[in-house]
Every structure is written in structure tokens, then in C-alpha cells.
């Protein structure tokens, strides 16, 4: 599917909920072009030369920050990293004041990771700079949703008739929300699977299927995306223990055998081996976990490029 007459005209990427299907396709097409850049010896294009990007991370993250940083460097942007510990937010400055200071430094793009849902929208409504959401609370993590969709498209070509399972702590997961919106818009069937406390029935109103048992749905899935379970950060009333979680929802070797042979195994990382996924299963040929990481750079290059005013998704 392509829409040659349409043009990307967003400055921000705040959520996949607000994008139309063609916009998501547009980013994925651009990402396909940028993917080849990373495979060259000279992994750099001049698209964002002279632009300044600030990675503003008010919540710990390594891989997303590194991925954005590499994406920006490959587009020739100047990159500054700012983390919560280094920033003045700990001295009582408000988010808006810190962000206005970044803008006063002539930042063109601010990539924001924040523990509060809506923090990116909040800045986008008040700043001139492009705001790219790198994860806001339990709201969205749009580039993760895009890179997951990109990985699925690389393998299946289209989303038609695909049954995609997302397993884990859906309630508190921004990855699950971004995946849900993107995959539904692209035409897939989305199955959310996990304990009833973490996967409320209400998700059906957003267009998903909700399951509280993993085994019956396993053989039907074309993709299984396992989310990280962090019992230590969770309020303890949602499930009793990681052991019980693994027994009920972990992708064990035995369960993996029930999957279709061509079912993709995905995980946004970092993985807890032996908890939500068995170690050997994570290393198996069906696993595309490291491909996801590679695709993350291409997708983020596409997003940075388009939100900076790039028009055609052509590799240079």
C-alpha cells in the first residue's frame, strides 16, 4: 500500500494513537530506505547536518537513548544527552522551565523520555522544537511500536490476517499501547494476554482481544511479543510472584513448541531470561529480538528525518 500524493507534515511524534494508518506506513517506508544506510561501510547521510538534537531522558534508559543517539549521528545531527541526574529537575526546576532552557539553546529536536504520561504532549503544546516521544509513563513509546511493526512487516510483508499476541503487564506498558494502536491501524488482529489484574477487559473497547490464559491462544499466533515483567517495581497486589507469572505466562521451551513454526518471537528488551522468556527460546531461530534493535535505528532515523521537514523517504 502506498499513498504517493500524501505528504508528511508533523513536527512531533507524540503517539501512534493520533497517527493515521498511512502515516505509519509512511514512516515504515522511510525506515526501509534508511535501513540500508546502517548496512553500508559509511553509515552516515547529511540529512540533519547543522541540526541540534537533545536526548532529554528523565527516566533511566540505555538502549532507547543509544538508539536515538546513533540514529541522529547517522543523520549528521549534533547530539547532546541529558539525563535526570544531571539535569536541574532535581533542583526543583519544573519540566517546562528546563525544556524552555533547552529551546533557548536552539535545540531543533528534543527526544523526551519521562515517567509521566502526557509529558511529551505537554512540551509539544508549549515549545517550538520538535518533540519526539521516547516513552512517557504508561502512555506510549511510539518508536518502539514502529520498530516492532517494521520488524513484523519485514517478515510477513503485510499485516492482513496476522494474529499478534502481546503478553505481560499490559496495564502499565507504554510499549503495549503503541503496539496496539499501530498494529490495529495496519490491519492486524491484536491479542493481549496476561493476568486479569494487568490486562483489564476494558482493553476490548480499544479494539483488542483480551486473554487471561496463554496456552489456548499460542498455536494461533503469527507473532508473540513478550513484555518485560518487573515485579520489584510493581505494586505487589497485581500478581503474587515472578515464579507464578512464569508458570502461567512465561514462554517456556514447552510452550514454544506449541507455536507455529514461523511464529516470530519478539521482546522490546531488556529481557529477563527465565522469567517472561526461556533463555534458549530467546536465542532460537524464531526470535527476532536483535533484529528489533537494529530496526530501531532505521525507524528512529526515519522519524527524526520526517519530523525535521524531510519530504521524501529516499536514501541518500
Amino acid at each position, binding site marked *: 500500500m502506498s499513498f504517493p500524493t500524501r505528504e508528511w507534515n508533523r513536527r512531533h511524534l507524540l503517539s501512534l494513537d493520533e497517527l493515521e494508518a498511512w502515516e505509519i506506513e509512511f514512516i515504515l517506508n522511510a525506515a526501509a530506505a534508511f535501513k540500508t544506510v546502517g548496512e553500508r561501510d559509511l553509515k552516515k547521510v547529511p540529512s540533519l547536518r547543522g541540526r541540534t538534537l537533545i536526548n532529554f531522558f528523565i527516566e533511566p534508559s540505555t538502549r532507547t537513548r543509544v538508539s536515538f543517539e546513533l540514529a541522529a549521528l547517522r543523520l549528521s545531527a549534533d547530539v547532546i544527552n541529558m539525563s535526570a541526574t544531571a539535569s536541574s529537575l532535581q533542583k526543583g526546576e519544573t519540566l517546562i522551565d528546563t525544556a524552555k532552557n533547552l529551546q533557548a539553546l536552539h535545540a531543533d529536536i528534543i527526544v523526551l523520555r519521562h515517567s509521566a504520561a502526557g509529558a511529551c504532549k505537554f512540551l509539544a*503544546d508549549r515549545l517550538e522544537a520538535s518533540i519526539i516521544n521516547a516513552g512517557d509513563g504508561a502512555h506510549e513509546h511510539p518508536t518502539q511500536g514502529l520498530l516492532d511493526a517494521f520488524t513484523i512487516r519485514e517478515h510477513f510483508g503485510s499485516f492482513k490476517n496476522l494474529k499478534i499476541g502481546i503478553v505481560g503487564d499490559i496495564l502499565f506498558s507504554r510499549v503495549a*499501547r503503541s503496539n496496539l494502536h499501530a498494529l490495529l491501524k495496519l490491519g492486524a488482529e491484536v491479542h493481549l494476554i496476561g493476568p486479569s489484574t494487568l490486562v483489564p477487559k*476494558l482493553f476490548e473497547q480499544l479494539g483488542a482481544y483480551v486473554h487471561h490464559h496463554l496456552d489456548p491462544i499460542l498455536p494461533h499466533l503469527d507473532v508473540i511479543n513478550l513484555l518485560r515483567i518487573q515485579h520489584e517495581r510493581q505494586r505487589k497486589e497485581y500478581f503474587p510472584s515472578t515464579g507464578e507469572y512464569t508458570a502461567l505466562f512465561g514462554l517456556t521451551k514447552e510452550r514454544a513448541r506449541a507455536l507455529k513454526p514461523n511464529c516470530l518471537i519478539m521482546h522490546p528488551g531488556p529481557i529477563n531470561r527465565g522469567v517472561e522468556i526461556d533463555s534458549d527460546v530467546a536465542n532460537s531461530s524464531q526470535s527476532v529480538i536483535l533484529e528489533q534493535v537494529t530496526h530501531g535505528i532505521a525507524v528512529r532515523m526515519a522519524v527524526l528525518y520526517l519530523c525535521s521537514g524531510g519530504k521524501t523517504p529516499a536514501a541518500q
Partner: protein
Amino acid sequence: MSQIHSNSSPFSPLQVLPLAVSSKPAPPLLIRNGRIIDPANQRDEIADLFIQSGVIIGDPPAKLPTETQTLDASGLIVAPGLIDIHVHLREPGAPHKETIESGTFAAAAGGFTSVLAMPNTSPPCDSPAAVMWLLQRILQKSSVRVFIAGAITKSLAGEELAPIGSMLKAGIVAITDDGHCVQNHEVMRRALEYASMFQLPVLDHCQDYNLSADGVMHEGQWSLRLGLQGWPRIAEEVIVARNILLAELCSTPIHIQHVSSAGSVRLLREASARKLKITAEVCPHHLWFTDEKLQNFDSTFKVNPPLRERHDIEALLEAIVEGTITIFASDHAPHANYEKEVEIDHAPFGMTGLETELAAFATLLIHRERAIDWPRLIACYTVNPARLLKLNLGTLTAGAPADLTLISPNLRWTFDRNQSFSLSKNTPFHGCEFVGRAVQTIVAGRTIWKLL
């Protein structure tokens, strides 16, 4: 629909005529040809009303005193002065949000002649000294009558009873831990029993902290979509149910503040059917907006209890029509812009409401839904709250204080927060088009505000 720009208003900006602090009584006033609505006396008729020396006389005498002023109220409703029993004036402690002076200006401009100030100030109103300080301040700064609610528990901590009897002697008219909620049922039981000794009204903000947890908005499809923590209906309903059971156990009345959920309405209805003395109030924002308003993470719409869903609004409307909810209030909760302009998780709960509540209820209940008529609406702001707080107000009975609100029932206007008297502008009603508005507010026979 006509345009919603503020310049479409047929009136110039509001003005307050300051309350004269002189000891001289107000001159006699004859209000002619108004539609007199006095629900306390089941009165609704076009008539003249005469007031003198700050009290209601009633029909004008055959020979008017020479200094009598007359006011033509043709086309206007002449109602008893409106009472708002749920207002945060923020003094002491947060005069950057609101003061008694600014808050009572806003009250006057909304048509209110009396307000009940909530005790969750800093320090809280939980001692006779705090009550005395407030009374002093009110005497100096207030342009309408300000009544004081004392805390149920010391420091609003929900643990030890505040000196309720001493605060009553100092001048409180009710107790509540508003903004907080007594979680310990035993403490609440003893508070009800203790207050019943003085027949002191007990008001409760209903919120179970375990169930509301870190919730910032209604738990539903929108909180799920936005990834914001939900504040479920059940957190309110559990405490409403608790209060009903305690009221029955202690044979005391209890008043439920700012009801927001359909489930609370059902519990209240069952309690009324069993003849328990439970009263309840509702705020205009809970009828005007749904949780969908949070979709852009706008903290203006963050309020406690949260904006809920369409079916909650329908239940609240039904409760008003059938008389399960009999009191209207604003929960006027001012916050400075810089406090609200933060991530929604960190923004304080609350919205202002004194200047829009009458218009919002009139527009919605009378003009849009045709749910109730003017006498019913006025009763919810006069005789009903006056009875709850045992005030000799909210009526036009001869001898009562001459507190009056003149209302233009079909006046179309658009609210502009920049013309608000409140020090804070955190209103969700900015730009809303209303039908009906207070145009003159009279306290003790003296006009304290008039729409010019």
C-alpha cells in the same frame, strides 16, 4: 449557535461595588415587578419586594419611607441570596491562589451571598484559634457572608478528633476533612457520634485512599488509553456506603460532598428510601464534562473526584430530578497557573467555579435538559443548603436577612476567565456559552455587586 467570543457579550466587564463597612444601615429598597422565587415558602409570582434595615419586609407599606430607592426588576428573578457550601478560599496559607477578599468578590459576581469555607488550608482550620483568625480576616476582607467549616480531625490526618466543641463555640457551622477523607471507620463513627451532641452538620469528601491510589483521572477507557492511573468510582462508593451505614448506626445525618458516580447515586437513593438523613451535593463540572476531556493531558480538567462518564452524568441528572441530590455547590478550588502547568501526574486537583456554577446549572438543567425549573434550581442553592447548615438564610420570609440574588434567566453570555475576580484562572468553563446569569447581588440590603 452564536459565537463564543467574549466580545459577543452584551455587557461590559464586570465590576464589584465594594461592600460598605459602615455601620449605617442600607437605605430601604423597593424591588419592583420581579419574578419572586422563594422555594422555602413555595412562592413563585411577579410582585414587589420591600427591604429595610437589612431585613426582608415583604409587601411594600402603603407609605414608603422618603429615602426609599427603587429597583426595576422586570424580566428578572428575585431569589434569596445564593449559598455555596463548598468553597476553598485558600486563606491562611496560599494567598497566591485566592484570598478571602478575591474569593468573595468572585462569589458576589457569581450571585452568591454566602459561602462555606473549607478547612484544608495551611495551617488547617482545626482549632478554635484558627477559627478566630479566620473570623477576624473575614470581618476585614469579605464582601459576602463567609461561614467556616472546621476539620473533623487534627491536621486533617484522620486520626484524632479535632476540638469540635470548642471550634463550634468559636463559630464553625459544620465539620469536614474535605480534600482528605477519614479512612479509619472507627474515627468517623466517633466523629459522627460526637458531632451529634451539638447537632453539628458533618460533611464528607468520600475517597478510599487504597482504591484511588495514585489515580489522577477516572478509571475507564480514557485512563487506559492515556496510560494515566485511574481513580475508580468504587473509591468514592465504598466511603458513601460506609457513611450511610454509620449514619444509620449513630442515628445522625451526614452530608456527601461532590457526588460524582452513578453507583453513589444508587446508594443514596436506597438510603433515602430507608428514610435515612443523608444529603448530597453535586458540582457543575461533574455534569458538564466527561473524562474524555483529559485526552490532551490538560490539567485544567484534573479534579477530585474526577470527571466521569456519560452514564454517570445521566445518573446525576436523574438524582437531581427525583430529589436524591438536593444541593448544588462549586468546590471552587483555585490554583495558580504555574502550579497547574506541570505534568498531569504532578498537577494539583481542582478547578474554580464560583462565577460559573449558577449559569452552568441553569444552562444545563433548565435550558438544555429541561430537567428542572427555576424554583427547583434556586432551592438547591438556598433553602436546602440553609437547612443543612441550620442557617437563617436562603428565604425571603419577612424578618430574614435581606440577602438577595437577581437573576436574568435568559441572558446569553460567554465566560472569559480573564475577567474573573478569582486570583486563579484554572477554570474548565473558559469560552463556554451560558444562558442565565446573576446580575445583582445584595447582602444585608446592600448591593455588593452588579453586572454593568
